[in-house]
């Protein structure tokens, strides 16, 4: 018996996770074939076609329309992220404190919009924002405006439509983060003499930042690549990168240029994310895990 327990020469110590790496194989293969390889081809095409060189990138950074679309993309993603955060934080705060049936009900309210596709919801916003739309009717009826406004296409419509779609992706990580905050810490702060406002600002808010950080990253990164909503609600002046890429690829049939645009967006996104990670690691040294 005792002999069986002694490890043989060169035997690796047993760990709980031994062998689990095999589970990574199917998704790994899948991603390599259907994601990594096409991505590499996109990058290669941007550099090699129609002639090897950086000509495609010259156009991306040289033509004002492309540069404007890129900065517009970052700006829109930023505005949408901030709006989502401002709306989601109090909501998540209220939901995180509920429990039992109320929590389930709230969670359903958060998740239900995800059941409808972004296309349909963006069409819905077209009906709201168009010249003969619901919003203009309402503004006129209330006497707030005296003539119909042209809201479509426009950045307001894009922002509203995108916030609508991204909101759950901000709320969910916020709730997860907030529910992880030990209630005893709030009680302790209370007993130690902190009135509600101080308790929130000095204990709850800082401890909720990891959740905020996750939500902000998720919403911002996803927004950078948004297509349907800006395509339907934003006009030529409010083009975002993904719309432009689609146009170059499917309308102009200039695949090398589309590839260069896509690669640029990928690099911008990655750089922004790395900068963000650094900032977060610096500002959350004690909580960040």
């Amino acid at each position, binding site marked *: 018996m005792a002999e069986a327990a002694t490890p043989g020469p060169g035997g690796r110590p047993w760990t709980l996770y031994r062998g689990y790496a095999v589970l990574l194989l199917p998704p790994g293969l899948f991603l390599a074939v259907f994601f990594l390889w096409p991505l590499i081809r996109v990058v290669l095409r941007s550099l090699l076609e129609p002639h090897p060189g950086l000509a495609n990138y010259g156009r991306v950074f040289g033509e004002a329309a492309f540069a404007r679309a890129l900065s517009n993309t970052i700006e829109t993603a930023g505005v949408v992220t901030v709006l989502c955060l401002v709306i989601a934080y109090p909501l998540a705060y209220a939901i995180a404190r509920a429990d039992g049936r109320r929590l389930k009900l709230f969670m359903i309210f958060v998740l239900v919009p995800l059941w409808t596709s972004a296309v349909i919801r963006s069409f819905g916003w077209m009906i709201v924002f168009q010249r003969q739309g619901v919003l203009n009717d309402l503004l006129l009826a209330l006497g707030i405006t005296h003539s119909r406004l042209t809201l479509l296409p426009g950045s307001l419509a894009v922002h509203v439509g995108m916030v609508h779609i991204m909101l759950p992706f901000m709320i969910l990580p916020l709730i997860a983060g907030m529910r992880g905050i*030990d209630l005893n810490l709030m009680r*302790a702060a209370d*007993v130690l003499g902190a*009135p509600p406002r101080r308790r929130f600002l000095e204990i709850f808010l800082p401890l909720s930042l990891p959740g905020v950080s996750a939500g902000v990253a998720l919403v911002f990164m996803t927004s950078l690549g948004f297509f349907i909503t800006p395509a339907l609600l934003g006009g030529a002046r409010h083009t975002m990168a993904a719309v432009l890429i689609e146009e170059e690829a499917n309308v102009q049939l200039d695949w090398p240029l589309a590839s260069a645009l896509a690669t640029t967006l990928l690099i911008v996104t990655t750089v922004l994310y790395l900068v963000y990670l650094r900032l977060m690691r610096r500002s959350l040294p004690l909580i960040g895990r």
Partner: protein
Amino acid sequence: MLDPKPLESLADRRPEKRAVSGAALRLAALAKDYGGVTALAPTDLEVRPGEFFSLIGPSGSGKSTLLGMVAGFVPPSAGRILIDGADVVALPPYRRNIGMVFQNYALFPHMSVAENIAFPLRMRKMPRSRIEARVKEMLETVRLAGFAERSPAQLSGGQQQRVALARAAAYDPALLLMDEPLGALDKNLREEMQYEIKRFHSKIGATILYVTHDQDEAATMSDRIAILNGGRIVQVGRPRELYEAPNSPFVASFLGEANLFEVAAVSNAPPMRLRVVTREGLTLAAHQHARIEAGVMICVRPEAIQIGSSGGAAANSVEGRVIDVVYTAGMLRYRIEVMGGRAVIVRRPLQRQVPIFEVGSPVYLSWDLADTILVPNTP
């Protein structure tokens, strides 16, 4: 298990100098219901200024509920909480000026040790220079100078505990609540911290309301103890009183070990003695008791019983046979089978000259008249 030793409570050593005078705490018919479930039945309690007062009781007996109501984060269903005569029920916790140490310490993970201790001082708008001085002083009091800039996650359990203590006492609250502050520590550290807290208590002088389910700990540290069971205080008294005169079999067996015997018959036996026959048929002698009209039980403490190979001249002498014997730190713990198949527990200090009785050997158990304790047979 309660050794006789802790009965000389640390509380008996009077303090040198005290920083604040403790508050008087009075609970009047204080009660808590959780949707029909009674967590605390209407309870009256008086804790004296500067007292170290412990609440003990089994899990779910309402200790934390009582403490939570005093702290203010559990709203009472009924009753009043008076601190130095003023009813605080309507005040939120942050306006009660009470100190509290939580079982899991509840240190703020995003603040350093110094910031944790400074937190209540900042809330009280103390000037910065005074906060710094005070934090330094508190860190020295709990022997953690040099740890100021660490984060709580970088401290051991005992060190976190001391930070929690320093934080709770930094603003000189006149009443300090502690909910199983040592529950998460191992035995050695727990004993060290018991002394630390007592030392702390005599230094700061606040009234301490202390919750534990460790009766040894309560007996070691407390001036007085309240024993809770099923949401009710069943007995209040000094540790020694509770140990020597429990008012119910529950208290007798909760505080220390107890051999409890049901009584079949009681009669007077001169001079001034009681002759008690137990359900098993043992005949025991006790002091004449003032009130025995209610049903009583007999409690004999395992430490009070002598064990020998022949019956002596003691007031009580019972024949038996050793079932088993266990060695614990400095102690021998026998189980002895007596008349009626009943097992009696005996604890003797382990000394070189004391003979050890082997399993199966016939022995005589004996104890003094005063050690046959009559316990009212209330549930």
